[in-house]
């Protein structure tokens, strides 16, 4: 039998042997990743083997990493001497790493709202924190796009001031600022088209990081449900307030009990009649919700048309606010109706309920934006108004502003009222819980409007920035005053992935479609904007390519445009390659799933083998004990068994474990 110290020695020797071929940087990383105390890590990094083996006074050669590295470098020195390219590359990579480190340090130090977020996390947990993190991410994104817009578009435009043909009236909010914005609203340059493309590229790179997130959270082959285990093992250590911890414990206990009762009833089958009623309830709920959404869209469309006619004849300044008001009311009221369906429908898992509600709300919001886009692109753009781009920009701006006002009112008044009702009038309701899904959807809705409007009014990111900034503080104050921590464990990271997916898929692709239709199909207004006089927006690019083709230095750009971006074959081949790669990855995933299943069965079988061998060994020992009653032998055997029992305290990979419980009749053996 091996003693504890001897085992430790072997482990450290193996570790050092694995560290020798590494570069010093990897070595430090590997040592840092060791779950050992500072003292042991320090010894490892100095390269000394300091195992306190009092029982065996072996003298270990004190190897230092410097000697090891020198030996290695001597061997490779001759090769590297000739290859100065490699040295160049090394120094470049070192410089890059250093700059990356310093950049991340700087970014960490200027991180916005760090303390506030810590307090929110401490009181309400990671799920509510995820909403505020998302808000902060959107704010950073808008700051970035505003800076890009500003430097490339607005500044040159200030130098070449043009007339602005439309003004907002005095009834509009923030008239002074708005007049200036209108003036710049239709000053969009050719460069802006390219900036849209650049923004697209940046978002593709953001998409790749999101895809990694997606892979970690969704595509992992989940063989077991793992629901309850995650509840037990993932206690939120960031919660630091006493009351919050007690509340969390109570909620966890309730949730465990609910899960357990669900598991008990899982096997209960419903009768056919119950299934039928449940199914018809689902169908009816879906029909009603879709009907409500379509009715709202139709109402918005007819109202918008009517508004346009009305505005042509009368010039009532308040009337322009009617459409945004109605849209915001719909956005506020209809989700409440949807959440009342909960009383009719019954779902097996509350998680499904949350998802279904989310999907309905998303459908509502996307269809409203869709119908508005249709109205803008079909009616306003083709209506023959002069400066129709500015009209659309103004519409979007008003929508955003009204939405913002409604959100603020909801935060300050609505939630406050809800708290009063919950605490004073109907005390059984208690404090409300922060509805993360609804708030994130609002953020995504506003961001979609901003993206659509950027083309028509480049200053929208600035407005969105200011709105997000104010919204953070408003929501924070309302959260602290009116809400209690969430009672259900909310799968924060899965939902964050879902939200980011949502942001990029319906939202961004919808915006891209709208822009594509605008650029390729619509005729710019004849008097306003830098695209005036062109038959289509896209002709600006055609004319630019034409001017480039006359200059000999830029023929490669023209070639790329004509043969890669402009040709169908290229995209066909690209699509084919992507499809093939996707198929290959899918096959690899399937193969790995089978592998996992087989390995799992193998582990179970090996466990059974181990139990069998242990029992056999114990029987043998018992027989020897009976045959040889010498007490010394007994004692030494027992001591060895005791040592063996304490093995593997720090390293679970050693399998030499003989457990007493086996002798006591482990029921699983």
């Amino acid at each position: 039998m091996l003693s504890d110290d001897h085992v430790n020695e072997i482990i450290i020797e193996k570790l050092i042997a694995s560290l020798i071929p590494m570069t010093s940087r990897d070595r430090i990383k590997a040592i840092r990743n060791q779950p050992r105390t500072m003292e042991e890590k320090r010894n490892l990094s100095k390269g000394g083997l300091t195992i306190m083996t009092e029982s065996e006074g072996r003298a270990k050669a004190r190897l230092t990493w410097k000697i090891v590295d020198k030996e290695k470098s001597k061997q490779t020195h001759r090769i590297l001497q000739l290859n100065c390219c490699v040295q160049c590359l090394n120094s470049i990579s070192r410089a890059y790493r250093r700059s990356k480190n310093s950049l991340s340090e700087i970014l960490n130090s200027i991180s916005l709202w760090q303390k506030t977020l810590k307090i929110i996390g401490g009181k309400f947990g990671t799920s509510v924190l995820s909403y505020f993190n998302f808000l902060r991410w959107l704010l950073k994104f808008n700051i970035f796009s505003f800076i890009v817009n500003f430097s490339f578009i607005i500044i040159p435009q200030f130098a070449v001031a043009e007339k602005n043909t439309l003004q907002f009236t005095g009834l509009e909010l923030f008239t002074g600022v708005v007049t200036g914005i209108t003036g710049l609203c239709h000053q969009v340059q050719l460069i802006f088209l390219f900036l849209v493309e650049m923004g697209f590229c940046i978002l593709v790179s953001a998409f790749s990081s999101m895809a990694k997130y997606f892979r970690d959270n969704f595509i992992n082959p989940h063989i077991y449900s793992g629901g309850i285990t995650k509840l037990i093992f993932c206690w939120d250590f960031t919660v630091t307030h006493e009351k919050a911890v007690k509340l969390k414990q109570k909620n966890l206990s309730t949730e465990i009990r609910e899960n357990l009762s669900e598991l008990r009833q899982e096997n209960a089958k419903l009768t056919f009649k119950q299934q039928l009623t449940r199914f018809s309830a689902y169908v009816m709920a879906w029909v009603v919700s879709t009907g409500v959404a379509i009715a709202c869209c139709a109402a918005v469309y007819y109202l918008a048309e009517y508004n346009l006619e009305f505005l042509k004849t009368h010039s009532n300044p308040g009337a322009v606010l009617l459409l945004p008001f109605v849209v915001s009311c719909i956005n506020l009221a209809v989700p409440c109706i949807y959440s009342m369906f909960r009383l009719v429908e019954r779902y097996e898992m509350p998680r499904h309920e949350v998802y279904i509600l989310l999907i309905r709300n998303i459908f509502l919001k996307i269809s409203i934006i869709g119908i508005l886009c249709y109205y803008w692109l079909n009616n306003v753009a083709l209506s023959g108004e002069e400066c129709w781009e500015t009209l659309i920009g103004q519409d979007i701006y008003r929508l955003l502003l009204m939405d913002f006002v409604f959100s603020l009112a909801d935060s300050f008044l609505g939630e406050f009222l809800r708290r009063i009702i919950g605490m004073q009038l109907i005390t059984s309701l208690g404090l409300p819980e922060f509805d993360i899904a609804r708030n994130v959807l609002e953020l995504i809705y506003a961001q979609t409007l901003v993206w659509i409007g950027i083309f028509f009014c480049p200053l929208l990111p600035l407005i969105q920035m200011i709105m997000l900034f104010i919204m953070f503080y408003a929501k924070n104050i309302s959260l602290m005053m009116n809400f209690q921590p969430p009672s259900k464990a909310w799968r924060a990271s899965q939902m964050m992935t879902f939200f980011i997916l949502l942001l990029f898929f319906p939202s961004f692709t919808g915006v891209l479609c709208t822009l594509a239709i605008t650029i390729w199909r619509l005729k710019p207004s004849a008097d306003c904007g830098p695209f005036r006089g062109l038959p289509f927006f896209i002709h600006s690019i055609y004319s630019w390519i034409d001017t480039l083709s006359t200059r000999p230095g830029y023929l490669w750009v023209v070639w790329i445009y004509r043969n890669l971006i402009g040709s169908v074959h290229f995209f066909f081949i690209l699509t084919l390659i992507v499809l093939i790669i996707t198929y290959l990855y899918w096959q690899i995933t399937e193969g790995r799933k089978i592998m996992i299943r087989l390995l799992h069965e193998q582990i179970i079988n090996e466990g059974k083998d181990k139990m069998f061998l242990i029992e056999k060994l114990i029987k043998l020992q018992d027989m020897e004990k009976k045959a040889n009653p010498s007490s010394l032998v007994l004692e030494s055997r027992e001591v060895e068994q005791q040592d063996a029992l304490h093995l593997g305290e720090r390293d679970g990979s050693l399998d030499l474990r003989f457990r007493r419980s086996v002798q006591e009749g482990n029921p699983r053996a």
Partner: protein
Amino acid sequence: MGGSGSRLSKELLAEYQDLTFLTKQEILLSVHVVLAPHLVDNEQQARSGNEHTGKPIAENTNSSPLSTRAHRRFCELLPQEQRSVEESLLAQVPFEQILSLPELKANPFKERICRVFSTSPTRDSLSFEDFLDLLSVFSDTATPDIKSHYAFRIFDFDDDGTLNREDLSRLVNCLTGEGEDTRLSASEMKQLIDNILEESDIDRDGTINLSEFQHVISRSPDFASSFKIVL
């Protein structure tokens, strides 16, 4: 208290930066802050053994890095005569004072955390380096591997290298709190532990070992973000 010579030397600084997941800037800032005069006020409280006032970080350092803040907070827990840097690195602080830190005060696992990270022979006190280890494991940049390793050790109440039924039931009791209505009944506990073992015990031996625990944790993407203590 605290002369100008009390600074973490550059070698020590680099060493801590190498061996933990904390950053260099943080350590530098904290050494500067550790000599701040406001520490004098906390000395009386530390000496009289009162509970730490629970004041979070000073207002001007809300973004100050981790191990410097760690050093400062640690020094606040020491009695006056051990405040010089070299001695503070070696001093052992008894558990009661560590447990009075605001970040740990309400944590249901605070005793287990202190016991796991303690390297003193009697396992009832923490040195500064142990404290740094603690913060490093609970920091943002620590790998999920190391987090799950230490989570396993924290949940292993009898320190035998596996989570058996007794460990799991003590774990659940920690999670649900001490109240009469929140504790699970015996049958509920049995059902819960049976479910846990069914979901995580791959080799069906009745206990969860480190690899099985890490396997379960790898399927919970929320683990890394919740196993965090932000100073």
